[in-house]
């Protein structure tokens, strides 16, 4: 119960208020004790000074003189005057302003009870033995008690006000917090209920709640974008798999109704190839999805990018030559990145294969790589026909294929993977030229 209270805003503020009240109480108690002691000392002091004065009179004029002084003082008495009692050896009163209610003993007495004009008082007294009796000087504690009471009331009042204020503040802050959170809560519930367009209302105050609302809205926007993307991808997948699946169906149909064995075997082989192609599409899609989730999952190792690109050129140059195209390398030495060597190889391989597949014979492709500062730019550019600008923007999306390449092999997944790899390495892939040739750049970050 207490633990749960501590977690609510009301609880926190209330506990702080109680803490403050306790501190007030402690300070009050200390102040009370110090004041009380100081006043007691003051009374003792008055008593002792008066006793000294009277003792002086005893020396000069004897007990009779003292008795006379006491009577004189009684006659000019004010509210804060001291009281006196002079008794002879037998304890009979010689001169007195009060009647003692306790036995008279030599020395200081803190609580000397006495009676005077029908009032019973308590005083601090000093009793001194005289040659012919005892002298008691008494200071009434009434004033002290009054000051004590005043202090008590003062502190009790302060404590009460403190507690009331604290609990009040706790309730108010708790209520305000709840009210502000309720807005966020209501939005979240609306989103859970299915209204994904809902956003947390902002008051523009830039307060912490307003900033939280802004951050939550950003998060919701990002999630909405991802969900849109997902929706788009799944409808793309469904759409783009329909064609090869239909072909597969047709081939199986042909196999089941084939006239002779040759035709049937032929159709079965065609169907198998079609199925393999479908599997390839799935493999490529899964690969992209995997690479997209890569950044957070995988420890990347240093990769000698220059060496890797040289190897890629060596690997692909024969294919380019066999296809009557040229592959030129312009690769700076000593380029190093942190990453996954195989994925980088696959990205570059996809670019090279695009250049091989979607260009006319006689095309020259140039694989260049250079670094400036922390940035590394890897570009594959060709002097082919390029792509129309209205198609250029979506080339990096899954299943995006330029209209002109509809008839050539491929699934439109190559550049999507290139971008996924670049993004997975903290960089990006962009179309750096689409007219008068075609060029894609990978922006990566140098490592040392």
């Amino acid at each position: 119960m207490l633990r749960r209270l501590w977690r609510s805003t009301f609880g926190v503020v209330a506990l702080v208020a109680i803490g403050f009240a306790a501190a007030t109480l402690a300070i009050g108690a200390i102040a009370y004790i110090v004041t009380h002691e100081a006043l007691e000392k003051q009374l003792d002091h008055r008593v002792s000074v008066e006793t000294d004065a009277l003792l002086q009179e005893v020396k000069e004029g004897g007990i009779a003189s003292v008795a006379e002084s006491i009577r004189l003082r009684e006659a000019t008495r004010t509210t804060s005057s001291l009281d006196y009692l002079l008794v002879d050896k037998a304890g009979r009163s010689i001169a007195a302003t009060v009647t003692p209610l306790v036995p008279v003993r030599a020395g200081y007495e803190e609580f000397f009870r006495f009676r005077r004009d029908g009032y019973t008082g308590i005083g601090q007294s000093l009793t001194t033995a005289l040659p012919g009796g005892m002298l008691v000087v008494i200071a009434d504690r009434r004033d002290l008690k009054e000051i004590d009471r005043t202090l008590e009331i003062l502190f009790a009042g302060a404590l009460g006000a403190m507690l009331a204020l604290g609990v009040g503040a706790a309730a108010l802050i708790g209520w305000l917090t709840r009210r502000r959170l309720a807005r966020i809560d209501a939005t979240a519930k609306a989103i859970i209920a299915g209204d994904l367009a809902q956003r947390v209302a902002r008051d523009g105050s830039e307060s912490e709640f307003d900033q939280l609302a802004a951050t939550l809205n950003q998060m919701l926007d990002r999630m909405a974008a991802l969900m849109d993307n997902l929706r788009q991808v799944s409808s793309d997948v469904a759409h783009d798999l329909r064609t090869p699946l239909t072909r597969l169906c047709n081939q199986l149909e042909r196999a089941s109704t084939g006239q002779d064995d040759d035709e049937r075997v032929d159709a079965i082989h065609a169907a198998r190839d079609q199925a393999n192609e479908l599997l390839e599409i799935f493999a490529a899609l899964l690969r992209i999805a995997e690479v997209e989730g890569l950044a957070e999952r995988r420890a990347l190792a240093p990769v000698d990018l220059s060496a890797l690109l040289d190897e890629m050129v060596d690997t692909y140059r024969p294919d380019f030559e066999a296809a009557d195209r040229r592959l030129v390398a312009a690769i700076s030495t000593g380029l190093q990145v942190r990453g996954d060597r195989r994925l980088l190889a696959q990205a570059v391989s996809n670019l090279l294969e695009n250049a091989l597949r979607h260009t006319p014979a006689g095309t020259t492709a140039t694989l260049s790589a250079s670094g400036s500062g922390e940035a590394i730019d890897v570009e594959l550019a060709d002097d082919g026909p390029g792509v129309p600008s209205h198609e250029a923007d979506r080339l990096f999306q899954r299943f995006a294929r330029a209209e002109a390449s509809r008839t050539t092999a491929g699934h439109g997944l190559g550049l999507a993977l290139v971008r996924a790899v670049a993004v997975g390495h903290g960089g990006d892939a962009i179309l750096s030229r689409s007219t008068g040739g075609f060029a894609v750049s990978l922006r990566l970050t140098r490592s040392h």
Partner: protein
Amino acid sequence: MRILIVEDDAETRAFVAQGLGQAGHQVATSLDGRDGLFQATGGEFEAIVVDRMLPGLDGLALVKALRAAGDTTPVLMLTAVGGIADRVEGLENGADDYLVKPFAFSELAARLNALARRPAPRNEPHQLKVADIVLDLDRRSVERGGQRVHLQPREFALLAELMRNPRRVMTRTMLLERVWDFDFDPKTNIVETHLSRLRSKLNAGFDEDAIETVRGAGYMIRGE
């Protein structure tokens, strides 16, 4: 060869078992990880095919347990597509090779063959000799019948890989993995192109083709 197949998917199991049986191997099968481990430690197998995902004890744990017990039987791990990390994990945990589903049976057979008689990889020799071909790994030179053959770096690596596995079929995927370090399948013919260049350089002046193409499977260097 005595081969153990640990695979929970009935169709894959039957497909692999039947194929290996027809190829003349003795095949034992197991449906889950625990039983698989039990059989693997008890039987004298020359190779084990393990699926990555298994009920009870998964493929990784099985291999790990097997290796912890000091068993060095070659293990080929099977996995579903989309497992970049799986591959590394599998090899780190003691699997010897890795094959992504779906696969062609010829690919599996070639890999099992390569695994089962794999020589100790520790002390790599300085020279490889198969028939009349001598490949010097230190000097990076190749001679056939005493005549020097000049090769490009990729062609040299390709020949070295074939010569490390004499009289064994190397599939296209195996060559891509081992020579190029590609774990993806390029749509172009880089293996074929390089092989045909290598072949024409090696065969220049000789009647007999040094490299045999095994239809539907891969390539093999001709031994004595």
